[in-house]
C-alpha cells in the first residue's frame, strides 16, 4: 500500500496498533479539514504492528493528547519533505478538555462552562482522575 510522503506537515509514528483511530478522534483531526491519512496495522520492526497518522498540513499537534493515548508514539515535524524535529510525548500530568467526566454527580454536569480536567494519579497504571470528583477516567 502506498501513501504519498508529505512535504510540510506532521507524521505521528509508532502508535501502538489499534490506538490510531482513538488518537485521530481525540486530536479532532476530522474537524481540521486538511488531508489526513491513517494507516493501521502497518508492519513494525519494534512492535510487530503499528498505526501511523500523516497530516498534510503545518499544524501543532497536542502532545498531551498524544502522550495520553500512547506515550510510545513519536511526533515528526516535516518541512520541505524532511524530518526537522522529532518529539517523544510523555504521559501528561494533567489533561484539559480531552476527556469528559462521566460521573453524573460531578459538578461539571451542571456547570457547563467548567473545563474538564483530569490529573495523573498513578503513572504505572496510567490512571487519571477528575480533579473535581476524583472519578477515574475510562481509558
Amino acid at each position, binding site marked *: 500500500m502506498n501513501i504519498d510522503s508529505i512535504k510540510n506537515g506532521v507524521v505521528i509514528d509508532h502508535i501502538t496498533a489499534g490506538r490510531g483511530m482513538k488518537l485521530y478522534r481525540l486530536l479532532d483531526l476530522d474537524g481540521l479539514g486538511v488531508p489526513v491519512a491513517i494507516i493501521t496495522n502497518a508492519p513494525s520492526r519494534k512492535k510487530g504492528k503499528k498505526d501511523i497518522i500523516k497530516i498534510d498540513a503545518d499544524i501543532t499537534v497536542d502532545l498531551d493528547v498524544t502522550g495520553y493515548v500512547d506515550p510510545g508514539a513519536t511526533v515528526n515535524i516535516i518541512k520541505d519533505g524532511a524530518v526537522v524535529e522529532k518529539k517523544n510525548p510523555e504521559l501528561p500530568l494533567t489533561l484539559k478538555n480531552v476527556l469528559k467526566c462521566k*460521573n453524573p*454527580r*460531578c*459538578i*461539571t*454536569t*451542571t*456547570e457547563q*462552562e*467548567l473545563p474538564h480536567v483530569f490529573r495523573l*494519579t*498513578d503513572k504505572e497504571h496510567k490512571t487519571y482522575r*477528575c*480533579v*473535581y*470528583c*476524583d*472519578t*477515574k477516567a475510562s481509558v
Partner: protein
Amino acid sequence: MKRSVIDITDLTKEEIDRLTDTANDIINDPEKYAHICAGKKLATLFFEPSTRTRMSFEAAMYELGGAVLSMTDAASSSASKGESVSDTAKVISCYADIIAMRHPKEGAAYVASNAASVPVINAGDGGHCHPTQTLADLLTIKREKGGFSGLTVGLCGDLKFGRTVHSLIQALSRYDDIRLVLISPEELRLPDYVYNDVILKNRMKCTQTTDLLWALPKLDVLYMTRVQRERFFNEEDYLRLKDSYILTPEKLFLAKRDMIVMHPLPRVNEISVAIDDDPRACYFEQVKNGKYMRMALILKLLRENGAITY
C-alpha cells in the same frame, strides 16, 4: 496566603497534629479564644440541608467571637436563578472572611475555592469529601486513646459508600502501626480503589471480615456506620444482614473495657440507645469535638490569609 481545605489530604499530618493541639487548647481554655475572630465573618453556604454541620460551623465562629452570614436555602438564593458556583463564591468573598460550603455536587467546593478570594472549607460535596468530619474523628480518637500508634481500629457497616470511612482510612494511613479491621457485608465492602490506593499503598495492616462478633474483642476503636436498605439489591439480603451490624449491650459485652464506639451520626438503629450511657460511647463527644476542630481550622485558615493574628 489564601488556603482552602477541600479534602483531608489538603492538610499534612503535622498540620492535623497542630490542629488537634489547638482544639485541645480551646477545650482547656475557651476564654483565650473567645474574641480572636471579633469583626470577622464566616459565610455558611449550604446548597442542601444539613442542620448539624451548619450549626457546628456557626457555633464554632460564634465561640471565636466572630459573626456568621448564613445561606440555608438554595431555593431562595441566586443559585436557583442559575448563578454558577464560581460567581457565588466571588460575590460572597466580598462579604465574608471565610466560607464553609456544602453542595450536592461532587467537586463544588473545589470550584468555589478556585474562584473565591477568601478561604473555603468544604462542609461536604455530595458523597465525595467531608474533611471536617474526619478532623472530628481524629480529635476524638486522640483525646480518648491518647494517640494513634498501636491502635486496632474497626470500621463497621457500609464501607462501600461511606465517605467518612474512606476519608478516615486516608487520614489514619499516615500514622504508624495502625491495624484496621474492616467489618461489612460482602455487598458493602470497601471499594478496591480505596483498598489498593490507600491501604495497600501505605502497607497498612488490615483484616476484612463479615463478623462483628469475631472482631469486637480485638478492637480499640469501633467506628460504626449505617447499613442502608437502599444499598442492597434485594430485600432478602438486607433483612438477613441488617441485624448483624447493630451494636447492642450484649454485643458490647465482648469488647474491651476501654474500647471506644464512634459514629458520624445521624444514626438510625445501628447503635442501640441502651449503649448511650456506656462510658465507651463517644459519638456525642465526637459532635462536640467537631465544633472544636472547626474552630481550630477557621483560626488556621484566617491566620494564614492574614485576616487575624494570634
